[in-house]
């Protein structure tokens, strides 16, 4: 038989993994100080199997080609006034949430992977994390560039980065990543690399990007495709991490299970904003949140957990509650934003009659019973000139930082609230899932920066809500917030389209 050709694995070993070195005069443990404190036991880094084999030179080559393609499309989109081709200006509000709430997470992911990429003793894991870190930086940049076109024509985009750090509802995604990044390196990998990238990202990229396509937004579709071509590497890295930890030592199994329980729950809470975008903010619907959840979480995740069971890993805790939530969370979230539309950095609206009918059809068991009557009431009040705004500041959950808007899943007329006394202070939670996370690490979460608490403590300017929005959040009050109906966005759109 002919001599075996140098295969991709050997090439990768020679060009990449060989870059590791031995510690001759420094203590290895001191060089990787975070590797042990989470209780994870690594007995043999050489058992790490590279989830993908990409050498740095081909990485640059591929990414450069992707950028060239992507920016050619952005240019064409911009030259052709692509924003005029979206189905309905309401759609652009979903992009405002994306840019203020999700794109900055890509930046946090870049920071997180750069950090853990430094902290792993195994060179394979280090290289993979560093590449992912660079990908994430590319994603945030392309998203900002894609949306800079909309920023020229619509309100609400201009202070996305500042707003991400301060605005009450944006503390939800922000704190999610801060929590992961301030954990140890292995927990970060299970939180972001596995739970978020492998299981939950598909729900952001696939249905939401299809939503962009259905609504004429070529720029967003294209950055979505471009990012997705990197996501595969991220997903396989997430899978390798969990296999590696579970196989290295049996004592790792309960630790990993605890992290899966925590991060699936955190992830589901975070996705309630995507649920709301899909069901309420896309004028042309792709599929309901419930349907997306069934396809991308229940079926794909179910197959995954069936395989993980062989390692002794079970479904995430509260999976039964999560299953029931698909019928409710999008409605509960959008209703909350509608009633707080004066303090949001985007516009809200009452669904049209046609949209209400669509929701009734998609959610036959819950929408007519619990949610449609609210919208009918809102319509009546608005017609009478009594558009309702909730003027109080909502109580936030200590963990997910979402206002207490969710209900008990077995009784959707009853708000879900939990509390727990820790060192003489009472802490409040939206659910058993969040409360359990607190009990596991109270010292971490008593430090949470909760926007409403901060406002009441006088740390966000004020005292009036209007002052806080204007000065602390840098919102352009009267332009960025309030109803779509009567907004400057709507007026401009009507002018462009020649509608009176």
């Amino acid at each position, binding site marked *: 038989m002919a001599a075996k050709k140098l295969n991709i694995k050997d090439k990768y070993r020679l060009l990449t993994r060989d870059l590791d070195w031995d510690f001759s005069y420094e203590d290895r443990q001191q060089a990787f100080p975070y590797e042990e404190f989470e209780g994870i036991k690594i007995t043999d880094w050489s058992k790490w199997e590279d989830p993908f084999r990409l050498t740095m030179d081909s990485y640059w080559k591929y990414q450069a*080609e992707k950028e060239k*393609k992507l920016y050619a499309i952005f240019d064409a989109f911009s030259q052709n006034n692509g924003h005029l081709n979206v189905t309905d200006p309401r759609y652009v509000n979903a992009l405002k949430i994306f840019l203020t709430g999700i794109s900055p997470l890509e930046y946090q992911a870049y920071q997180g992977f750069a950090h853990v990429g430094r902290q792993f003793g195994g060179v394979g894991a280090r290289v993979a994390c560093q590449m992912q870190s660079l990908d994430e930086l590319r994603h945030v940049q392309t998203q900002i560039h894609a949306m800079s076109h909309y920023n020229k024509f619509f309100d609400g985009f201009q202070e996305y980065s500042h707003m991400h750090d301060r605005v009450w509802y944006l503390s939800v995604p922000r704190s999610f990543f801060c929590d992961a990044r301030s954990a140890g390196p292995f927990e970060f990998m299970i939180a972001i690399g596995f739970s978020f990238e492998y299981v939950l990202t598909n729900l952001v990229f696939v249905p939401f990007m299809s939503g962009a396509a259905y609504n004429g937004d070529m720029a967003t579709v294209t950055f979505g495709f471009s990012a*997705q*071509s990197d996501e*595969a590497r991220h997903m396989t890295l997430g899978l390798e991490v969990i*296999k590696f930890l579970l196989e290295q030592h049996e004592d790792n199994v309960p630790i990993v299970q605890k992290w899966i329980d925590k991060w699936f729950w955190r992830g589901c809470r975070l996705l309630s904003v995507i649920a709301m975008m899909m069901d309420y903010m896309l004028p042309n619907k792709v599929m309901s949140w419930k349907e997306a959840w069934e396809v991308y979480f229940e079926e794909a995740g179910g197959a995954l957990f*069936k395989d993980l069971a*062989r390692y002794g890993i079970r479904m995430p805790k509260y999976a039964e509650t999560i299953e029931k939530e698909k019928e409710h969370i999008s409605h509960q979230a959008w209703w909350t934003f509608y009633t707080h539309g004066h303090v949001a950095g985007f516009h809200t609206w009452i669904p049209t009659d046609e949209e209400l009918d669509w929701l009734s059809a998609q959610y036959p068991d819950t929408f007519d019973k619990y949610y449609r009557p609210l919208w009918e009431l809102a319509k009546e009040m608005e017609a009478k000139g009594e558009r309702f705004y909730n003027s109080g500041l909502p109580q936030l959950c200590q963990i997910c930082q979402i206002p207490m808007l969710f209900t008990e899943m077995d009784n959707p007329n009853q708000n879900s609230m939990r509390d727990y006394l820790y060192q003489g202070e009472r802490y409040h939670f939206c659910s058993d899932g969040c409360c359990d996370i607190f009990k596991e690490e109270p010292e971490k979460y008593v430090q949470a920066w909760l926007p409403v608490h901060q406002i009441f403590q006088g740390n966000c300017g004020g005292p009036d809500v209007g002052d806080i929005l204007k000065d602390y959040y840098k919102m352009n009050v009267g332009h960025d917030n309030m109803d779509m109906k009567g907004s400057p966005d709507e007026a401009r759109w009507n002018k462009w389209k020649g509608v009176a």
Partner: protein
Amino acid sequence: MSYEVTVEPTGDVIEVEEGQTILDAALRQGVWLPFACGHGTCATCKVQVLEGESDLGNASPFALMDMEREEGKVLACCCTPESDMVIEADIDVDDDFAGYPVEDFVATVTEINELSPTIKGIFFELDKPMAFQAGQYINLKLPGVEGSRAFSIANKPSDASMLELHVRLVPGGAGTTYLHQQLEVGDTLDVSGPYGQFFVRKSDQQGAIFIAGGSGLSSPQSMILDMLEEGDSRPITLLQGARNLFELYNRALFENLDREFDNFTYVPALNAPEPGDDWQGFTGFVHEAAQAHFNGRFDGNKAYLCGPPPMIDAAITTLMQGRLFERDIHMERFVTAADGAEEQNRSALFKRI
């Protein structure tokens, strides 16, 4: 109409139907290729075409870029062959794989035995010796039966001029019905082989555990006879599962080996012994016998599984719960017409199991 696609560097050959993607055909035929999204957007399944024509399908321009298209790269999840092809994938060649070339043989039936009420032992003489690794299989062409049928070789490689096959009668199976009911001594059949990635990783020094069910004893029989003949001194354990005593075939062979060789242990298990069997051995499924025999700990071994899919799945779960993982588990699934082709929604967590 179907095409043959050879997957390098392993040399596995898969049959791809008109309009079927390479990835789909490979996974269905037990050949693992890297994949993730399955619909052309992620590029995990990118492979290099060395020979042949194909349609690129719906590959996203970001997952398969122009320069890659010019270099002859395709995404296996979207690509449909338009001729026979040779592709190179990012998969590892096992150092223990000998890579004997596939050849065509004419085999003459010399003997047909009833091994059990449902399994026949069929012996052939070959027109020329076949070089193969113990554990590999051959394809048989049967008169009046469309396609070919795969059977593991039960004899050891040093008996290169003969073939021993163990054939279980599959209810409604055209191939096994022919072999059980029509084949006679003196008949000749066209054979090609050897195929497959199921063989003993001899360079690995760990103990070898064989778990066999039904006619899946064939490969382990070849592998064990080969190892013992070579004087291999590692601990070797064979766990053989059968329904009842009638179905537990070749028992005497392995009981004798157990007595003769200190490093070989034979553990038969019956899951439904008949009252008349007067069974003193392990009662239960073969994976339960393995668990009991090894006290639930399998690390420090390599396991070789051969048999019907439910037995393999149960054995994998038992082995993994006993801390033996994918890299140390090797298997040959005996999929038959009776198993159906039910669509399994599988995750990308495991490559081969």
